[in-house]
């Protein structure tokens, strides 16, 4: 079944209330830390207090004898017993050499490279005992100079022998010669330097894991707060521990938010699993928030220079970008793909810029590893491009909307100069709708009213595009991916006609148990209550890739659609047999199989029963049962796009920026559950506006100490920091997946930061502030205004 037929079915486009909510609202959710296993001990990690140091010695003798302590493991204990953590994406430098890929040990091997790096693991009967013993582990460090700013990386003391200048790779895309040629003769060139501030993901559930081992059957179970349990298992068994994959079960139960930070294979997960066998017990660890700040993979941290060449009418002719990307101390699982494949390929944005050249230098620094965080590369691309585009408008003296309209892509499919081919979109309509929703016509009056109060008001635009559902696997493989990018779906019809769906996607807030059930119920013509969705357990679900990159409905949902196609095909054969008709004459509609042109029909439930009680059944031609699995590998990315318009009020006396209005119009293609989609946009917007106004990860430049290491230092968005949003949608269904969906999980975080900062700049430009980096916190805004006065 295709997208146009699907969208006509009942339940599709309905704001069905979520089936998962009752357990979360009654305290019956089962997050990893809520689980306790028999014979369970607790682990605490000894972490480096230094950003960069040689380990001269680790003395565990006192800790080892403390009450309740089972074992203290150090780097020496794991040496030769396991490999380091792998990186899942190989980037090839412009000189043809592979990226520098230094070891990423599970416990430090003679050197620590960031504050929070793992030095030892203490396992004891209680958390308190483990914590006390961890404090008794004596580590003698020889402290080395630290480098934290990506701009200083080349001059810093080398972190890794494999990368003496701290350089991981230089990567480029586009035709440099052609781009340079265009710039040489362009009527206008607008230039911009900008920083995309480092963020700390801060899912409200801290990371948590329990490694367990059963000696009787030599089987391991890892409970872990993770977004993709099969990937976790594959990386851990095949690359790090060398365990047989079938002997390891990874369960990601209820997970309290991920935002990318729970995609990755972390050292703790491996250490706990390994220790479970050494000690023949379950070993549990839950991060405290301080550990989350120090050791969860961080996001963003780019420093870029961008230039746009235009003709006299503001038509974009060429874009030239250089970015320095901070990868942190080690290569986290998908870190290397973020500032390259997921970033530079998005720099065409919504515009028909004929030539683009992007060069990226990626560096090691003495900071926590940086990896995918809500949007992963696409927010960085959007922030750069949308800031630059508004700057172009201001330089040319035309409107932020006008510059965009003059350059929008209007014909599809569209091949960008940076590899991607957009299948469909309608950027002009989206912009128009956003302008109406935002009441742009009333802006001048609102600005006057604001100025009458002695304040400043600005309006900011952002027209983002993102690429979701990274695919297809073979092309991603050619670009360096070391994993497949498909998804699996199994539809198990039970004899009484109810259905359990097994998906490789993982829900950690996105509501798959509801959305996927809607799709299945719609297709089979059965009540939503008759469908259950199972995810997050390698012991129950076929191999799947999990949830990241807004892929779940478009890739995971498509796999379920393919499995449903197979169910329908087989069920029609059974129905044809029951009604003594030709299979070609059977229609399936509204939960009933009908013989064309007759009043003969059988309900879905009867066909299901017949499949499992095959008394009147074509056993010579057809197997019993009604259970189908499909693996779906997309032929292209999906391309959600939208226009966001933000209005801010700035108090020049205090520097306080208040978002007064925020209007977002998105094109997500087909929408299965509008309520859930709106919720995803709200959450994304607050993370993006959080980056623009509040959040900022800061390391001390000299010592490499994390200065924003708690929720008292790192400004998380709270309810009273945020406005209510106005949302609307445009729908151009994706042309190449069976649902027509595009994905909605990251859009808000991708599109909103430049809309906010463009609005801040629009407000401050009359005061002489022409450029400004995130976050627009009161002190930074106030200082920028004062600098102009000075």
């Amino acid at each position, binding site marked *: 079944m295709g997208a146009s037929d699907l969208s006509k079915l009942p339940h599709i486009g309905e704001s069905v209330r979520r089936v998962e909510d009752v357990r979360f609202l*009654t305290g019956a959710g089962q997050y990893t830390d809520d689980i306790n296993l028999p014979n369970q001990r607790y682990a605490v990690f000894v972490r480096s207090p230094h950003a960069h140091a040689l380990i001269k010695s680790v003395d565990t003798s006192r800790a080892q004898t403390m009450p309740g302590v089972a074992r203290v493991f150090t780097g020496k204990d794991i040496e030769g017993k396991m490999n380091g953590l792998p990186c899942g994406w190989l980037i090839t430098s412009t000189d043809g050499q592979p990226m520098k890929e230094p070891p990423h040990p599970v416990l430090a091997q003679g050197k620590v490279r960031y504050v929070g790096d793992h030095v030892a693991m203490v396992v004891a009967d209680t958390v308190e005992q483990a914590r006390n013993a961890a404090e008794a582990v004596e580590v003698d460090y020889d402290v080395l100079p630290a480098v934290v700013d990506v701009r200083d990386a080349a001059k810093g003391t080398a972190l890794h022998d494999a990368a003496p200048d701290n350089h991981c790779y230089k990567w480029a895309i586009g035709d440099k010669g052609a781009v340079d040629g265009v710039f040489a003769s362009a009527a206008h060139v607008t230039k911009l330097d900008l920083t995309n501030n480092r963020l700390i993901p801060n899912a*409200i559930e801290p990371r948590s894991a329990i490694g367990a081992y059963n000696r009787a059957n030599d089987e391991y179970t890892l409970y872990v707060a993770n977004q993709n349990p099969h990937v976790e298992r594959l990386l851990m068994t095949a690359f790090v521990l060398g365990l047989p994959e079938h002997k390891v079960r990874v369960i990601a139960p209820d997970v309290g938010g991920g935002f990318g930070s729970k995609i990755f294979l972390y050292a703790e997960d491996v250490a706990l699993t390994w220790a479970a066998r050494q000690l023949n017990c379950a070993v549990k660890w839950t991060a405290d928030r301080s550990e989350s700040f120090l050791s969860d993979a961080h996001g963003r941290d780019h420093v870029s220079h961008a230039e746009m060449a235009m003709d006299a009418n503001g038509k974009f002719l060429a874009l030239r970008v250089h970015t320095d990307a901070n990868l942190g101390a080690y290569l986290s699982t998908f870190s290397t793909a973020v500032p390259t494949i997921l970033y530079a390929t998005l720099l065409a944005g919504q515009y028909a810029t004929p030539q683009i050249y992007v060069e990226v230098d990626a560096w090691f620094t003495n900071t926590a590893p940086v990896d995918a965080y809500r949007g992963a590369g696409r927010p960085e691309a959007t922030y750069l491009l949308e800031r630059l585009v508004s700057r172009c408008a201001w330089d040319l003296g035309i409107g932020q909307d006008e510059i965009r309209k003059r350059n929008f892509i209007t014909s599809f499919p569209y091949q960008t100069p940076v590899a991607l081919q957009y299948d469909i979109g309608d950027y002009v309509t989206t912009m128009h709708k956003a302008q109406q929703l935002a009441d742009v016509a009333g802006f001048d009056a609102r600005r006057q009213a604001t100025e009458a109060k002695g304040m400043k008001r600005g309006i900011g635009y952002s027209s983002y595009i993102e690429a979701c559902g990274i695919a297809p696997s073979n092309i991603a493989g050619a670009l360096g991916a070391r994993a497949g990018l498909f998804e699996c779906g199994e539809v198990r019809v039970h004899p009484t006609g109810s259905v359990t769906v097994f998906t490789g996607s993982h829900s950690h807030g996105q509501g798959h148990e509801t959305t996927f059930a809607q799709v299945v119920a719609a297709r089979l013509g059965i009540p939503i209550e008759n469908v259950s969705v199972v995810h997050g357990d390698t012991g129950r679900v076929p191999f799947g890739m999990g949830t990241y990159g807004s892929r779940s409905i478009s890739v995971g949902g498509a796999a379920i659609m393919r499995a449903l196609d197979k169910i329908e095909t087989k069920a029609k054969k059974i129905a044809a047999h029951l009604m003594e008709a030709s299979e070609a004459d059977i229609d399936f509609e509204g939960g009933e199989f009908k013989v064309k042109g007759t009043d003969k029909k059988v309900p879905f439930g009867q066909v299901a029963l017949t499949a499992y009680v095959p008394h009147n059944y074509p056993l010579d031609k057809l197997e019993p049962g009604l259970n189908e699995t499909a693996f779906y590998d997309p032929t292209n990315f999906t391309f959600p796009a939208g226009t966001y318009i933000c209005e801010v009020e700035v108090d020049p006396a205090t520097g306080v920026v208040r978002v007064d209005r925020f209007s977002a119009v998105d094109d997500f293609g087909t929408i299965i559950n509008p309520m859930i989609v709106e919720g995803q946009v*709200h959450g994304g917007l607050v993370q993006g506006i959080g980056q623009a106004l509040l959040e900022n990860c800061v390391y001390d430049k000299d010592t490499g100490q994390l200065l924003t290491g708690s929720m008292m230092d790192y400004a998380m968005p709270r*309810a*009273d920091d945020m406005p209510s949003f106005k949302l609307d949608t445009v729908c151009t269904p994706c042309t190449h997946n069976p649902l027509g969906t595009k994905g909605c999980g990251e859009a808000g975080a991708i599109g909103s930061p430049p809309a906010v900062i463009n609005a801040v700049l629009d407000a401050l430009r009359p005061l002489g502030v022409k450029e400004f980096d995130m976050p627009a916190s009161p002190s930074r805004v106030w200082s920028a205004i004062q600098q102009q006065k000075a």
Partner: protein
Amino acid sequence: MLVQFKVNGKQASVDVAPNTLLVQALREHLRLTGTHVGCDTAQCGACTVLVNGRAVKSCNTLAAQHPGAEITTIEGLAAADGTLHPMQAAFKDCHGLQCGFCTPGMVMSSLDLCQRHPDASEAEIREQLDGNMCRCTGYQNIVRAVQKGQAAMKASS
């Protein structure tokens, strides 16, 4: 030491160390794991419970400080037959939760808020929820849920 209190209407007695936090007593001794721990600095509010009717961050107080108290956790809100409390129902109806981790604390704070400020405006609700962080919902639907729950609680009182 032995601490006795009433949890969700039932007498409970826990044998805890003097430094045991209230949240540890609830989660680890009474296995009421609906109350969550999201930070170490009493910022996130995921651990919020009602102590004698007032919202308290249970990660920031010792079990031993509350002998004889009446404590309500998220597990104690629904009716015996499973019918959701109007505030729980409002969170569901307004999609005021996504991953569900902050939700128990958010609901408990909302109850306290509605008792103290039965006529709170949107701005006041946002201000009053300052002590509870949510990373998923962007707060908009939480605010709607509190408004709806507030109206339902008034109607039923």
